[in-house]
């Protein structure tokens, strides 16, 4: 396992009197596929949102590759190499699948108002390169034949593949996935996890939030468990399976919820 690449230190987030995330310190090592589990209401999504900049932490810090990224906006984080997908997919519905993917690269010459006119040659060259890379990524994600379809008309599982394809265009260091398997049919879920594991072998770091304990047990290592806003377990899948505290906290709370 590599060096720490993403870490939170004493991260806390309150909603009025309610402390959703309570002094959470976790570390994600480069090249790992770290799983974050916890019952409903454990604070997974709040922690996720505080890391990706959708929510400002009440206190504590977040570090990416050694630099402090606490409180940065989502658009700043993507350019620093931290990407995320959404639990409920957010495709650009009335745009083609290919356009969805071609949007993502940063610093496109043609993205400025007069870019297409003033630096026409450069913008075109870049556009051609982006198009080629986008088709490669779509091909990898098994979406190439849907390139010209409106992104709003593909299946939910395909939308999840598309979201992963989009963030790959930015060549991020760390990808945070919010319940990647939720609501996806088994075949596409299989494809999705196969692609995630392939990317992980190629060196991408993943932090995966999942409600589904089996999914995390099978695919993630290490595993971090949250309950009532606190880290209650950190370790391997084997340790998790035999950890009574974790099983009690997780299954107990789930039965209540």
């Amino acid at each position: 396992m590599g060096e720490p690449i993403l870490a939170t230190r004493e991260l806390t987030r309150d909603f009025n009197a309610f402390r959703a995330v309570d002094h959470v310190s976790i570390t994600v090592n480069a090249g790992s596929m770290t799983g974050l589990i916890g019952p409903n209401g454990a604070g997974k999504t709040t922690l996720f949102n505080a890391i990706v900049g959708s929510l400002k932490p009440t206190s504590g810090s977040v570090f990416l590759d050694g630099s402090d990224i606490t409180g940065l906006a989502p658009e700043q984080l993507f350019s620093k190499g931290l990407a995320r997908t959404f639990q409920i997919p957010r495709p650009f519905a009335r745009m083609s699948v290919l356009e969805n993917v071609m949007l993502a690269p940063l610093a496109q010459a043609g993205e400025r108002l007069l870019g297409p006119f003033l630096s026409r040659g450069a913008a075109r060259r870049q556009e051609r390169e982006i198009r080629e890379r986008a088709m490669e990524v779509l091909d990898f994600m098994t979406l190439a034949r849907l390139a010209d379809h409106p992104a709003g008309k593909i299946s939910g599982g395909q939308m999840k593949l598309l979201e992963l394809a989009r963030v790959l265009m930015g060549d991020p260091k760390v990808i945070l996935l919010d319940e990647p398997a939720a609501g996806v049919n088994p075949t596409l879920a299989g494809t999705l996890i196969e692609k995630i594991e392939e990317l992980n072998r190629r060196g991408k770091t993943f932090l995966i939030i999942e409600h589904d304990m089996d999914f995390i047990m099978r695919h993630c290592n290490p595993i971090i468990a949250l309950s009532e806003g606190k880290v209650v377990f950190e370790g391997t899948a084997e340790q998790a399976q035999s950890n009574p505290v974790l099983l009690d906290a997780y299954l107990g709370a789930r039965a209540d919820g």
Partner: protein
Amino acid sequence: MTGIISYLVFFTTMASILAIATLGLNLQWGNTGLFNGGVAAFFGAGAYGTLLLGGTSQEDHLGGFELPYVVALAGGMAAAGILAWVVGVLTLRMRRDYLAISTFGMAIVFENVMRNAEWLSGGAKGLRGFERPLRDALGDGFAYNAAFLAVVLVLLFATYRFLQVLVRSPFGRLLRAIREDETAARSLGKSPARVRLTAFVTGSVIMGLAGGLYATFYAFVSPQDVLPTLTFQIWAMLIVGGAGNNRGAVFGAFLIWAAWTASGWLLSRFAPVDAQIYTGSIQYVLIGLVIVGMLLWRPQGLLPERLVISQSGQAPS
């Protein structure tokens, strides 16, 4: 015969000017999803700006700088752009419905200022005494109107080409992404605020161009030219033609302007005399019915937005 031709020239000139304004709204609403309820104000800023800068000097109000026509027209566009920048900075963070309300209110303010600030705009009497460019060479007759139409058509075509290249470029892709889902666009490293403002100002400058041409054509502008009716007309043109499709915007402008003038003519010709004083109001109701009907039965418009796909995605040359 000459009468018909000169009417057609008049009709095409007006329709083309309104088509330019509709193209500006299409950039804002069709491509970026910005609900501009104050089209009339940006059109008006262009119209007043052009006449103030290019007109002959007047005793009772500001203006009459007698600048060369091209400078005056560019100044009118700049006035619309500056107004849009100020309004945009203040309102573009709002949700779609609130943006519509606040821009609509801003246009009412604009109209009232023009109606009352006599030192600036000549008040309710409007701005007169504008010397149309090249009048000495072309006279006031048919030749002038035909030449003016040619200029308007060239500008309409230039605006259309500019926007076609723009919406198929990465900039256009960015606008559509922000229209579709701002949160997702931000998660991919895009900054919506700056892009929304750019699109809003650019669209308003195009409306300002339309306003400048309109004022030149009549050599006159008054508060009656910047009433909310104009905003609704332009919206009807875009919705009927097809939001998100530049060809649709131009087509819609011609269609609605034809329907507008035809309904005015029919009402004045065949409606009972008692009803004729209500012609304007009846037209107002008709334009509302067209908008609502279209939104109910064919919200995508007659020429719907077309997907940018891989084969034709390259910026057209």
